[in-house]
């Protein structure tokens, strides 16, 4: 039965393709063999042009225009007003004194989130990778286990954790067993921020573990053999061989983590009901989203100016990453 079905499918594909072939072959003859690669590239480049390069150009257009019109050509030119509005502030450390206090709240929230998340994820991923790199039973199982959350959707993760942290959830049940009074974790600023970081580490650490593990397995084994002959202590082996040789990988992972952490949105949005409590977990992407789509105001100019600023930061991080990646290859 299965064989029959696949044979039918094959026939079908064959038939469709031979039909598709006719016009393409004609086009090929018309253009000449030399220009065929352009034909193959066309769909991709058209899509990139329309949905990536055009938006970049429009982005700049939005950032220097005001009003609420959607189409750039209908918007009045305001120069750098949007940037001025975002950046005018009496005291940058206190968002309340800024003209766009929400923007600065988001910046500071993102700043602290990136800091804690990068350090925590890197540490957890590194320790896990080092342990998994030891020859041991069940390595494949554990590697798969830690990787599993990476594949889940941010909405699913947000909801699963929201339920886990519910007033009637498992964590509170555990707290009660221990004699600790229950908490409404996601409505208390400190706890909510803590759990946004924890959920993020839980979600993504498997991915970074995998990259670091690949780096660890690329370290030449004879170095460890030499260390064993010299009766080097395990600590010395770690600090004199493993970590220095893993260094470039660690740096790449660090930058990658920073790039991704700056863009925190999906799972935090679901978990904290849109950045709550209050604005304690409102991050920069959320600010852009809310300015542009969150209300009927459609402050596209402000949103785009914020996007451009974030884009510049991300671009700088990416350039550092590329540089490091090139260096890694040279080694």
């Amino acid at each position, binding site marked *: 039965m299965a064989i029959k079905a696949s044979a039918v499918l094959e026939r079908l594909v064959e038939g469709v393709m031979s039909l598709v*072939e006719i016009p*393409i*072959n004609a086009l090929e003859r018309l253009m000449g063999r*030399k*220009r*065929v*690669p352009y034909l*193959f*590239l066309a769909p*991709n*480049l058209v*899509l990139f042009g*329309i*949905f*990536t390069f055009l*938006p970049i150009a429009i*982005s700049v257009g*939005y950032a220097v225009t005001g009003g609420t019109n*959607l*189409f*750039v050509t209908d918007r009045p030119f305001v120069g750098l007003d949007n940037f001025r509005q975002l950046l005018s502030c009496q005291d940058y450390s206190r968002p309340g004194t800024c003209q766009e206090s929400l923007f600065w709240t988001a910046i500071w929230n993102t700043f602290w989130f990136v800091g804690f998340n990068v350090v925590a994820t890197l540490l957890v991923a590194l320790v896990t990778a080092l*342990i*998994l790199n*030891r*020859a041991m039973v069940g*390595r494949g199982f554990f590697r798969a286990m830690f*990787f*599993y*959350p*990476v*594949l*889940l*959707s*941010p*909405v*699913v993760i947000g*909801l*699963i954790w929201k*339920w*886990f942290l519910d007033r*009637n959830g*498992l964590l509170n*049940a555990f707290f*009660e067993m221990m004699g600790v009074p229950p908490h409404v974790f996601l409505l208390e600023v400190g706890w909510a921020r803590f759990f946004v970081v924890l959920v993020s580490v*839980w979600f993504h650490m498997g991915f970074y573990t995998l990259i670091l593990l*690949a780096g660890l397995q690329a370290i030449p084994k004879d170095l*460890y*053999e030499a*260390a064993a002959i010299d009766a080097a202590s*395990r600590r010395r082996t770690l600090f004199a061989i493993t970590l220095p040789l893993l260094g470039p990988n660690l740096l790449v992972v660090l930058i990658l983590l920073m790039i991704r952490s700056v*863009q925190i*949105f*999906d799972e935090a949005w*679901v978990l904290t009901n849109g950045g709550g409590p209050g604005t304690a977990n409102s991050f920069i992407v959320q600010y852009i*989203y809310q300015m*542009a*789509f969150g209300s009927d105001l459609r402050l596209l100019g402000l949103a785009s100016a914020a*996007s*451009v600023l*974030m884009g510049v930061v991300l671009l700088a991080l990416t350039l550092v990453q590329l540089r490091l990646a090139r260096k890694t290859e040279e080694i």
Partner: protein
Amino acid sequence: MAGTINPVAFLGRTRRRGRIDITDILSWLWLIGGTIAVLVPVVWAGLSSMKPEAEITRFPPSLLPRTTQQVVVPGYDRPLGLWTVTIDGESREMAMVRRIGIKAQMVDPENPAAPVSVDARTISPVQKLTIATENYSDPLERFNFLTYLKNSVFVTVVATILTLIVNAMAAFALSKYRFRGDKAVFVLIISTLMIPLTVVMVPAYMVIVGVGLVDNLWGVIIPTVASPTGVFLLRQYMLTIPDELIEAARVDAASEFRIFWRIVLPLTAPALAVLAIFSVLWRWNDFLWPLIVLSSRENFTLQIGLNAFQGEFSVQWHYILAMTFLSLLPVTVVFLFLQKYITTGIAGTGMK
């Protein structure tokens, strides 16, 4: 690569063979603790999704999905809950008629004429294991979840097919031809890796409005089809296909398109499979872009529907968790079967 153990390296790392030292124990604790930390929230949500509405908010919660057993007692028009009551040191199963403060009025189902009053703090419900299948069937019938599911499948399948075709074509041109500007095109495509959606989402939305695809599933699909990671992955793989094969086909007067789809594409199957897996995961889990593009309920994907649903029915956890689990299931199945390809694919390309 991963599974093989070099015996010499093995000795080198676990010094003193056969002796378990403190780092071995700590390693195992870390791994087992980590596994529990990964599993507990997921399994807990799964178990909770099978609990009936009345049970799900009970605190402290029970581990397994259970319901209080009900009995029909003559003289009472609705079924009564069954409780274990201890009277005079003898424990019996009785039905609860009503509860006032700390007093509960109980009745023996066999002898309904003589109710007794007992201390409500001393009784406990008689429960049995049940799975509340209505948590799954109700939302599918009543809350459009079947539509969301259909939309998600449509987006995932169509976007994946288009992704494979469009990017394989570009990768073929970039790996098997030399033409004016080939390097520039490659760099241009790869450079778009640096521009995440979060940076261009506002103008990208304008483009979608401009081409008339707002609140349309095609508006979710088309902008994500051209993928720089896809081009890169496939091109690297196609570079390993020997050019002699293509030359031989040209001698046989095969058209370039025929060479692409009869020779190169089948040989690229492993890389195409990896890209297909990634593509399915991206689309199935995608959130921010569909959230921006789609506005009417009948066009929601599962993730958007789930998010909207939890916002509106934030107390209906039995439904929310059931639908969460439904959305998690395909990914889990894919993972169970393709775990090895996914992990080695990611370790090899460093992408997600």
